[in-house]
């Protein structure tokens, strides 16, 4: 293979002369991290709500939550992104708002769209894990709470959810990691996140390998930090004398 390695290319000025390639990559990284953390926050809030709903008696709530999961889990993320970016505004927004959206800063609309899309997509997956964590709790544990006169809200909030959450930290960790990786589809609507920036750098400099190796290492670094943080959380939540929080 005849490839002209040049790692100092990162310090070279960009083609427009306005920046250096290292800053391109780092700004891409910033977008990736920002989008992912915002999407994860949305996914946790909606996912926990849906997951709890799926374990409650009211049938309508359960049916709606199930429908949500089926819809968002079974349609490819890329298709969902195109839907939110190209179709949803035209179908759902009044013309005046559409015009305002078209005039708005495209980076802002792309970022917002990606956060919402990835958040709603991941919520379906978080929902299923929360539901599994709740259903892993023994019946007697609910009964013990009810027998003390606690309401369902108390039992869920103070007994079941804290224990269910401990059970699902490991699968939630891999879901969290997926969020970072899935955020790369944002490049298809023109958002310059990490993958897009490295592709852009590769195209302008012909140093494709350096650019994608940098991106790969940065994704790897994000994943390492995330899984270490989640491990630390798991250790912090460990109950003395108790296993994982499944059964006694």
């Amino acid at each position, binding site marked *: 293979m005849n490839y002209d390695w040049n790692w100092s290319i990162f310090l070279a000025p960009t083609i427009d002369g306005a920046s250096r390639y290292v800053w391109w990559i780092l700004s891409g990284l910033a977008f990736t991290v920002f989008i992912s953390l915002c999407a994860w926050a949305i996914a946790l809030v909606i996912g926990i709500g849906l997951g709890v709903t799926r374990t409650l008696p009211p049938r309508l709530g359960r049916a709606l939550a199930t429908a949500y999961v089926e819809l968002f889990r079974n349609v490819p993320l890329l298709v969902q992104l195109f839907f939110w970016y190209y179709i949803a505004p035209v179908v759902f927004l009044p013309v005046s708002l559409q015009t305002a959206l078209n005039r708005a800063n495209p980076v802002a609309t792309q970022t917002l769209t990606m956060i919402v899309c990835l958040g709603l997509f991941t919520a379906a997956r978080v929902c299923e894990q929360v539901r599994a964590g709740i259903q892993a709790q023994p019946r007697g544990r609910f009964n013990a709470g009810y027998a003390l006169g606690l309401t369902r809200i108390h039992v869920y909030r103070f007994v079941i959810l804290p224990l269910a959450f401990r059970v699902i930290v490991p699968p939630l960790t891999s879901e969290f990691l997926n969020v970072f990786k899935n955020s790369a589809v944002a490049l298809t609507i023109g958002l310059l996140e990490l993958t897009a920036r490295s592709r852009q750098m590769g195209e302008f400099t012909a140093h494709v390998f350096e650019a994608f190796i940098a991106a790969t290492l940065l994704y790897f670094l994000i994943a390492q930090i995330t899984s270490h943080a989640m491990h630390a959380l798991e250790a912090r939540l460990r*109950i003395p004398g108790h296993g994982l929080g499944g059964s*006694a």
Partner: protein
Amino acid sequence: MSEPIVIESVSKWYGETQVLFDCNARIAKGEVVVVCGPSGSGKSTLIKCINALEPIQRGRIVVGEHTLPAPAAQLPAIRAKVGMVFQHFELFPHMDVLHNLTFAPMRVLKRDRAAATDKALGLLQRVGLSAFAGKFPGQLSGGQQQRVAIARALCMEPECMLFDEPTSALDPEMVNEVLDVMTGLAAEGMTMVCVTHEMGFARKVAHRVLFMDEGKIFDDCASEVFFAERESRSTRAQKFLSSIVA
């Protein structure tokens, strides 16, 4: 004597399957009633109906001034007055012993922390576990966990106590420490309904024995009568007794 628990013509189904058949019983204040019978006879189901952990489809149950079935919104208030101890202890594993004891009094009875803690420490001392207030349930033996569970129920100052096979999950050497606590409670005049296979406890402590089989109450009599006059009991009870009492 007032009657804190009255069970009237109670029937219950799981789907199509009937599990309780027209059960009747009256339990007086301060009375200790043992419910016994072969497994699958509906004993646990019956006492779970008393605090509405299991809904009933026919009949009614009077608990203090409340009557079941009742609207779901009233159930927490009813249950708060009925203590329950479970076969598998069911302490909250992520709370230490003291927190297990103070949690419901603070949330449900709105006690302040100091009052709830005082009460909890007093009850822990009574079940002989003062030194364990800061331990987690997973760090205790089964017998210790069950004594904590009894103390937890007592922290709510219940009008009566339900015991659902409280010693069945225990190693043999731990059974007595739990029965001793229950015996002490009975001596103090607590109204108790105990599902148990401990016939020694039934003989010594219970005032009355209910014998159940296949979802029906076959015998309801004073415990001395139940054990002394076996031949006058239902044939099912005789068979049950001869199979478990040597």
